[in-house]
Structure formats: structure tokens, C-alpha cells
């Protein structure tokens, strides 16, 4: 490398390519991206079978969504007359338009699933116990933000799927006691889903919610460091290894897996697009996106019960959990025998969520009547 290039490289990265232990420490400390990490990591938390890389995968999916979302914004027009036309443009008149939309769609679906699995991982390893209670609360808020982002994004294509899913979703909002109808009015910018609602969902989806997400993600990561790194059992080995390269390489591996999967799905499966939104024609059955079909299944039994009581109780239970269950035993191990009751209870709830989602997705046909998917 010539002296000039070397000087340029040094002006950007400050330290040379990390080879000696000192350079590896310096590399972690002197880079904006890397300094979020510790310089040395406990061996316990590096095992892929402990974290499954799910939190990191959620973050990478969020990054993919930000990048593809910005590209989509260049073509998207948040107006009832233009929104659906932009979808058709993306399909027929934009270079790699279908790929962009597919990647955004499947990364969004993937993020909902991965964030949910990440929460399950944290529960089953008891990682929410003190001193990590507050970071669990932030995690619950991040799950809710992920769902809100999915929901607001769902209206934007302005097709039949979008219109009726949002009709059902915002009607559930109106059932909330006291302020429900007012919040719905505020969300829609009126009484009907039209121009005002589309613009509000667009601004929420592209700016307000992602900014809130970015802020909370930063706080979430920062708290991991401040709470003493990822959770580990009290008796686990204190042995640490250098973050460069052991942690950095593993993180890059998660990134590769995420990118390959998103690319594969985006190439193989097209995002659905139905007819343009039509308030006079309700499709039968009208279904919400799959991650809300469990909610829709519950709502079928009664809107207050399914749309208000159950979700509110679930969210409150999640938020309060780390302040109720403070027993320090069984932290840092999957399915620790000391946490059998808690794990069993959570597994039942998680399975119930999965079960109602599967029922709503596959076992409900026209007029929300019971159908058996394999008996055609």
C-alpha cells in the first residue's frame, strides 16, 4: 500500500487491520459501529445455540426494511388515486420493482416472526430477570412497534386486502373504553378510510414509527451493555475471548443468513396484490395479515373480548412480568428445571397465540365458517 493510501486509511480507521491483541481492542473501541460491543465477550454467550442470533437477526431485518423502504418511497404516492398505481408501476415499470417490494414484504413478515421468537428465547433462558427487567420492557415495546409498523404498512398498497384489513383493525381500536372512538378518529383523520387515513398511515409508517424504533433499538442495545452483557448463569465460566474476531464474525454470519433468506424469498415468492380498494365490495372472507389472524379469530368470539380484553391482558402481563418474577434462579439456561412452572405457563401462552393464528389462517373460510384446508 502506498504511503498516501496508508495515510488515507489511517485517517478513517485510526488503527491498522487488527492483528495483535492491542489492535483488536483498539478496533472495537475506535469504530462507531463496533464500539457498541464489548472488547471481550464471555464464551457462554457466543454459543449460537444460546441466543440463536434472533435479536441480531431482527435488527438486520429492520435494516433491510429501512433500505428497501427508502427505495420504495421514491415511487410511492400516498393518495388513493396514486397509491395503487404506484404498486402497478413497481410491478411493471420499475427496474427490479417486484424484487424491492417482495424483499420489503417478506422481510417485514420475517421480522414479526423473528421478534416473537426472540422474545420466546429471552423468556425460556430467564434473561429478563434483574438487572435486565427494564430491557425486557423495552423489548415488549419494540414488539408492539414492529406490529404497528406492519399494520400501518399494510394499508399503503391500497388494494382490497389492505383496505379491509385496516377496516377491521381500526374498528377494533374503536372498542377500547373511554377514548377508543376518538383515537380511531385521530388515526383515520376522519370517520372513513380515505385520503386523510392513507396520508396518516404513510407518515406513521415511514417516519414516526421507524424513528421511535431506531431510538428504542439504540436504548435496547445500550442497556445490554449496561446490564452486564448478555445473560449467563452464575456458575458459567468467566472465560472471555476477544470480540474481534470471535463476536464480529458471528454477527456477520447472522447477517449473511438474513440476507440470503430475504433474497431467496424475494426472488421466489411474489408479494400479493389484489384489486384496487373498493369500499362497496367486502371480499369473503376478509382477512387481516397473518400475524393478526389470531386476533381476528378471537374477535370472532366477541370484539371486546378478543380485540380489547385479551390483547390488553397479554401486553400488561408481558410488561409486568420481570417485576413479578424476580427469582434469580435459572438465568442463562434454556428450559432450566428451576423455572419449570414459568416456562410451562409461557409455552402455553405462546402456543395459544400460534394456535389461534393457525386457525384464523388455515381453518376459516367464507363468513368465517370452519373449513378443513386439506378437504377440498
Amino acid at each position, binding site marked *: 500500500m502506498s504511503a498516501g493510501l496508508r495515510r488515507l486509511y489511517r485517517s478513517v480507521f485510526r488503527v491498522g487491520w487488527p492483528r495483535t491483541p492491542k489492535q483488536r481492542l483498539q478496533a472495537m473501541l475506535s469504530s462507531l459501529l463496533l464500539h457498541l460491543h464489548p472488547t471481550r465477550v464471555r464464551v457462554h454467550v457466543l454459543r449460537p445455540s444460546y441466543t440463536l442470533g434472533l435479536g441480531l437477526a431482527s435488527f438486520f431485518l429492520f435494516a433491510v426494511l429501512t433500505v428497501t423502504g427508502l427505495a420504495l418511497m421514491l415511487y410511492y404516492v400516498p393518495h388513493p388515486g396514486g397509491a395503487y398505481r404506484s404498486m402497478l408501476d413497481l410491478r411493471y415499470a420499475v427496474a427490479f420493482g417486484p424484487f424491492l417490494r417482495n424483499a420489503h414484504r417478506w422481510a417485514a413478515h420475517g421480522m414479526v416472526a423473528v421478534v416473537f421468537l426472540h422474545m420466546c428465547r429471552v423468556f425460556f433462558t430467564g434473561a429478563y430477570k434483574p438487572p435486565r427487567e427494564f430491557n425486557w420492557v423495552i423489548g415488549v415495546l419494540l414488539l408492539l412497534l414492529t406490529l404497528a409498523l406492519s399494520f400501518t404498512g399494510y394499508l399503503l398498497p391500497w388494494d382490497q386486502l389492505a383496505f*379491509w384489513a385496516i*377496516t*377491521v383493525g*381500526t*374498528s*377494533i381500536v374503536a372498542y377500547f373504553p373511554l377514548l377508543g372512538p376518538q383515537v380511531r*378518529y*385521530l388515526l383515520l*383523520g*376522519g*370517520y*372513513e378510510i*380515505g*385520503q*386523510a387515513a392513507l396520508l396518516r398511515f404513510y407518515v406513521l409508517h415511514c417516519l414516526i414509527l421507524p424513528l421511535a424504533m431506531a431510538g428504542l433499538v439504540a436504548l435496547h442495545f445500550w442497556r445490554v451493555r449496561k446490564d452486564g452483557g448478555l445473560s449467563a448463569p452464575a456458575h458459567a465460566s468467566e472465560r472471555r475471548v476477544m470480540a474481534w474476531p470471535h463476536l464480529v464474525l458471528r454477527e456477520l454470519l447472522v447477517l449473511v443468513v438474513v440476507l440470503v433468506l430475504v433474497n431467496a424469498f424475494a426472488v421466489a415468492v411474489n408479494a400479493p396484490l389484489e384489486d384496487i380498494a373498493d*369500499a*362497496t*365490495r*367486502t*371480499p*369473503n*372472507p*376478509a382477512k387481516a395479515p397473518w400475524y393478526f389472524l389470531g386476533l*381476528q379469530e378471537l*374477535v*370472532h*368470539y*366477541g*370484539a*371486546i373480548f378478543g*380485540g380489547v380484553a385479551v390483547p390488553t391482558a397479554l401486553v400488561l402481563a408481558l410488561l409486568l412480568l420481570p417485576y413479578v418474577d424476580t427469582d434469580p434462579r435459572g438465568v442463562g439456561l434454556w428450559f432450566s428445571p428451576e423455572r419449570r412452572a414459568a416456562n410451562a405457563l409461557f409455552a402455553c401462552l405462546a402456543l395459544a397465540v400460534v394456535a389461534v393464528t393457525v386457525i384464523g389462517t388455515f381453518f376459516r373460510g*367464507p*363468513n*368465517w*365458517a370452519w373449513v378443513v384446508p386439506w378437504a377440498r
Partner: protein
Amino acid sequence: MTPHDPVPEPPETTPRRRFLALAGATALVAAGLGLLATLLRSVVPEVLYEPARRFPVGRPADFPPGSVTFVGERRLFVFNTPAGFYSVSAVCTHLGCNVAHQEGRGFACPCHGSTFDEEGRVRKGPAAWPLPRYAMSVSRRGELVVDTRRTVGPGFRLRA
């Protein structure tokens, strides 16, 4: 100043300093709350660009005797019975989907399976409330007018 100079002690608080500090804190809180209130109030729309709530749906002759007509853009049904006209909302009171009319058997909602009778009364849940029946009148130009701001009882019939 050398590194070993002691940090200067904060000056003693005097009534004047305390007053200024309180005034400053009050101004900060008031300005912050005021800004927040302005912001929140501004997102509540004052003017809606939505269709009128009272509108003509057509001439009586447009609705053949004994017919049930779905007026799509208004999301309601107009019945022409031997006793007169009446109108029922097509918006399911459960979660806002359009109900479908089934000849002589009332209404069914495709979203969550609620059913209603010909007058809009709930036959089977999850819907908890009946479909609203809207007040109707005849305009001076002889058109049937529906007023969605006013609901009427099951017996309502308009002679026209």
C-alpha cells in the same frame, strides 16, 4: 489554573437566585406543555373531506316494489316494501365490513360471521348491536333522502 486547583464551590443560593431558577423552570415547563398541546390539537382534523351525511339516493321509481337495493357508494340498503320504504346500514356493527343481503333471510357479514334479520336486528353474534336504520324523507324534487345522522326504530316505513 493548574490541575490541582480546587473546584470552586457553587455560590450561595440567595432568594433572588431561587426566584430566577423557579421562574426559569416554570417558563420551560409552560413552553414545553404549550408546544405539546398545540401539536396534539393540530392533528385533530377540523374539516373533513368526506361525503355528506344526508343525501339523496334516487327517485322512488328507481326501487321496484318488493326490492332490496344495495347503494354501494353510501354503504346501505334501501327496502321497498308494501308498507313503504326504509333503509338499513350495510356497515356491520361488529368491525365495519359490508354485510351481504340474503333474499328473505336478512344479512350476513363475511368478516366474522354475524347475521342480522331484515330489520337489521342481530340474529347471531359476534355483533352486539343492530344495523342502524336511517331516517328517510322525500325531498321537494321528489327524491328519497337518507339521513345517516338520525336512526329510527324497526317499524319505520316511508310512504312515497
